[in-house]
């Protein structure tokens, strides 16, 4: 039952664009020696990405606005997100970087909210899914 549920949830995550093929790579790495590899990596990601988000918030508060720094932090955040296949998060990061490049403060603020939203949404979904998947094993 859980297995079926987990599978459905997994499929939905891919279909709805939350995850991309990079997540499959993670799944491929999971084996008997590392049965919780995916969960482990996702946890790592969410711990680390909180740092990025905090850092961006601080920089957004500063005056004058440092677009370059923001772009820099976001670049790293994007790299991290892409490594677990967080598709929507990655997209918002890219959009944020675009606004940074043209120096659009408003755009940056707006997009950053999107980033946080997607980031949080994915976290919830992954937590549910991984829990189900673990139970199913």
């Amino acid at each position, binding site marked *: 039952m859980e297995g079926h549920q987990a599978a459905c949830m997994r499929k939905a995550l891919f279909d709805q664009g939350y995850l991309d093929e*990079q997540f499959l*790579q*993670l799944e*491929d*790495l999971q*084996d008997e020696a*590392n049965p919780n*590899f995916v969960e*482990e*990596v996702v946890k*790592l*990601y969410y711990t*680390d990405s909180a740092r990025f988000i905090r850092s961006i918030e601080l920089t957004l508060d500063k005056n004058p606005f440092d677009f370059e720094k923001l772009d*820099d932090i976001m*670049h*790293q955040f*994007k*790299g*991290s997100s*892409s*490594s*677990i*296949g967080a598709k929507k998060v990655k997209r918002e990061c890219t959009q944020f970087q675009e606004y940074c490049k043209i120096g659009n403060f408003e755009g940056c603020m707006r997009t950053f909210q999107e980033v946080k939203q997607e980031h949080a949404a994915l976290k919830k979904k992954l937590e549910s899914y991984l829990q189900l998947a673990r139970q199913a094993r």
Partner: protein
Amino acid sequence: MDLGVKPVSFASSSASWKSADGVPDQFPAGLRVLVVDDDPTCLRILEKMLKNCLYEVTTCNRAEVALKFLRDNRNGYDIVISDVHMPDMDGFKLLEHVGLEMDLPVIMMSADDSKNVVMKGVTHGACDYLIKPVRMEALKNIWQHVVRKKKHEWKEKDFEQSGSVDDVERQQKPIEDVDYSSSANEGTWKNSKKRKDEDDEAEERDDSSTLKKPRVVWSVELHQQFVTAVNQLGIDKAVPKKILELMNVPGLTRENVASHLQKYRLYLRRLSGVSQHQNGLSSSFMGPPDAPFGPMSSLSGVDLQALAASGQLPPQSLATIQAAALGRATTKSAITVPLVDQRNIFSFENPKLRFVDGQQQQNNNSKQVNLLHGIPTNMDSKQLASLHQSAQSFGSMSMHVHSQASQSNSLLTQMVQPPSRTQILNEINGSHALNLPSSVGQPVLSQGVPNAVLGRNGIENVRGPPYTSVSQPSTVVDFSRSQSTEFLGTSFSLVSNSGISNLTSKLQDEVNSEMKASRGFAPNFDIFNDINQNRTQDWRLQDVPSTFETQQHSNVRGSLDVSSSVLIQQQFSSNQKSGQNRVPPVNKAAFSVADGLGNSSNIGQQLSSSLVDNPSRIKAERPPDMGYQNGLFSEHFGQEDLMTAILKQQQGGMEPIENEFGFDGYHLDNLPV
């Protein structure tokens, strides 16, 4: 997250792998990989992926730590994978360190896939560049870089043992000398070419097999050490082993020095060859009495060295140029007439350089080298052609100048001779890429103006003593290829402009600014290629001597020198074409360029006088242009004016030429037509 933890299981397999000459059965299992990435998520994923490939993985999240691991355990790793973007140290810096100290293959990674970053990785010697997110498939094959590198090392060892490299070089020398003595440029060129080919082959051997391996980065400092060592030993006595000992750089192998020396020698030859062809005008200039330069192609780096050796180039600058040139040279194959490599070389350094080359080519075609490279305008190729023409007329003037300026001449000589652009390009690129990040001159050189390139570098570096000896025109002009002339002129101007003016100031800064100025035209590699194709004229710088004089004159002036050199080159090319030895047009052009550069007042006068002096000469080559140019030239003596004048003339005269050239790349916006 592992930090420095090595799985024990692979220890034995890696040991056996290491010791075996060939590849053990388990290979690539047990490959010892060091992964450096500050992102814990990525690091963990990479670690797992590599373990799944049965590699032995060590991870660290700081570059400093990674270097420590590597240093503490010199032979403990086979390959390094590093992120580009790290907080404590730039990934490229780490790459350089590893390449220099440990000579391990290094793979760079980044989420950034923009061309310039990837290019940076390549130029810094990364053997591969992975875009994040990294996939398993990409990591599975990293062992190939290790094998490739080892293979190369074995080859080098064999080489060393047989002493083939040195032998080859020695054999070549006599041949060159013989050629040189003969009056035929072709003969020399052929020999040089042969030599060059062989050298190139040797280099290619190194390069192709090491394409992906982290090679020694011949930084300015390193190259300088090299140059110092060579000078200490004496260019004839400098053998890799001794150089290596003198340099005393950890992690540098004899093979590295050998291949670097090869390039350097080629460069020197080119330098000396240019001067020599010029009928020994600049005999004193060419310090290293290397064999006749023949095709410049091999020169780029060597010339600089020669210059340096002759005491004219400040070691540092020379080192820079050479390093760049030499570095680049390796990556490129022989410079042949079609500047195939230009593109490569050029791409990373300066688009501007391309421009130069293109111009040069144009010049060649148009008979006149458009010395006005130095002129900060946007010039079309066509314009270049016209410039080239005017350059020719200037050449006569430059003759005059030449007598006064010694340095520029020498520089020109160098520049003028590139037998093949590609070589120059290669060399330039090499050198530039490595050492002169911004210098425009460098890239240009590689573009294929062997001589020009060298000249450029030399010019850039030669801030100090003028090269009187510079190759007096004969050498410079040894263009066996039509293209070269143009190319030379172009590059030369670029170089000269930048170089000469830089003579007094920072080498690079000036070059860059010069380049920029003159480069208004869109740098493109394509142009160079085009140019190559456009080459139709055989340029033989027979007039090198005259050019030289001009150059010298300009050297005195600093910026003037640059222009003169440029002019001279052009002159050469044009002269070559017409088979006249006339420097005048070029010289004058150079001169005017020089004026534009800044020192002009004196030169301007000289130019004008030379213009006056040489009208007859000029006429022989291009009567209409010359006249035009001469006239124009004399009118504008002001520094800026001269340049403008020249440009104008070029433009004016260019119309017909444009068609000839079919040059697409350049736009001489500023040239009033």
